[in-house]
């Protein structure tokens, strides 16, 4: 896959990041290397191997439907980048 300026700009937008020119150049090289390595997998014969989404064979890790105490609000808000009163706060998302 070719990594070009348009794709980098698209990824920047998707990940809400702003990159410097130098970072963009470095990332282009990194991504090409990463995807090149991944592309080696295309050469494998996976014809008779079922698709899987997990490295382990386990299934059905359930918990019972029981309420457990939540975390103290002050404590949980303390971990947030922004808060106001009882709420988490973020820059305004609508006009």
């Amino acid at each position, binding site marked *: 896959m070719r990594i070009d300026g348009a794709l980098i700009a698209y990824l920047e937008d998707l990940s809400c990041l702003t990159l410097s020119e130098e970072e963009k150049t470095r990332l282009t090289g990194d991504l090409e290397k990463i995807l090149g390595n991944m592309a080696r997998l295309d050469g494998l014969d996976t014809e008779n191997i079922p698709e899987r989404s997990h490295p382990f064979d386990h299934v*059905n890790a359930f918990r019972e439907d029981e309420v457990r105490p*939540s975390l103290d609000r002050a404590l949980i808000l303390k971990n947030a980048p922004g808060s*106001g009163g009882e709420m988490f706060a973020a820059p305004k998302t609508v006009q």
Partner: protein
Amino acid sequence: MTWETVIGLEVHAELSTKSKIFCGCSGEFGGEPNSRVCPVCAGFPGALPKLNRAVVEYAARVGLALGCTVAPRCKFDRKNYFYPDLPKAYQVSQLYLPICQGGRLEIEADGQKKSIGIREIHMEEDAGKLVHDADGTFMDFNRCGVPLIEIVTLPDFRSGGEVMAFLERLREILLYLGVCDCKMQEGSLRVDVNLSVCRPGEGLGVRTEMKNLNSFKAAGRAVEYERRRQIELLESGGAVVQETRRWDDDAGESFGMRSKENAQDYRYFPEPDLLPVELDEARLAGIRQSLPELAHQKRARYRRDYALSEAEAAVLTGHKRISDLFESVARLSGEPAEAARLITGEIMRLMNLTDTQPENLSVDAGKLSALVAFVSSGKINRGAYKETAEAVFLRGVDPETYIAEKGLLMLTDGGAVAEAVKAAVEDNPDAARDYLAGKDKAFGFLVGQAMKKLGGNGSPDMVREHLRKCLTNTPNR
């Protein structure tokens, strides 16, 4: 030339499990802001989700009730997006292998029976609530991780009436299954409508998606509005833009929501923090067996076993609380027909009058069955019946005490009735003469006079019988 409307629905139903889908926080509606939040549902790095067993069972129940195939193996995927309503920056959902696929729901709309296809049902987590003000956006994460199922239909609807009929039937089923409280005002049931119009025989048109439909009526209105808007647009040479529109029910119109330049790219990938879910035949059989009797099955049984009319059966099964009440009163009183009459009549009237929603109905079945016994044994008249029903419904009085205290028992004392009839005839000799001269109206008048003397508590049949006897024995005949 005519237009054809093609509509599909996406219905989100919040499951009424005790705890959230991936953590032990309470999933109940409301609560102090951010009082039901933990490292898992707040998306703290390193916190791992664990799937609530009840969520899988509830979703499978809905699937089985809608005739879906429940997948022997399903799994979760991440839907990535940046928006502060989900602190993890992704929603755990099911894209590739949803739990249920391919069901049907029979509806009846505009006098026509129709079958609506269900494409799939998947499990996912709800997002938090945002409040915007001048200073910024504020988040309450209590709803983050509340379990949802999304029911996706095939584009089988052709009118707003069909959409409303489907939603009514679906709500009925969800309530009977006990998996969702379906309170639209609390967001437990949310509907998105996809709609396009086309010329019959031609390919599908460009569709729009409408959100914010907070009642079934709003969904019906939004469909009619959007259908007309698209037709007018196309007929005046314009084109429909694929977009999401917000329905404003007060204004009676919808508005295009500003779409971003880039189409949404959710970068779905398998959720690595959760293991796949497998449901074997034995588990499924267990769930199938635990399914309660559904509304349409109840309707058939009421008609068959209690000989109720279709209209009565429909009213009684409109809500599980109503059918539960009916069955209790019918069982306790042993008078199903009279119990049906009481609930479809007086109780429904009082619920409308007091604007009581079925889910808030709290009238005592024992007291209603006592009332049924009074009326079916002919011990109280129609007026007393209504009055007592009202007192039981509004104030929870005991019917026996109330009837005794108010003196509502019908007089079945022959002596008292005979006396009242005699006095009525003596006081109104003209009426008695008129009756004997062939004026039937005069008979009714005399019945009324005798009843008045009995304080309205005379048995009408008894009064009539005595009056007939009294008049035929009158000497001037």
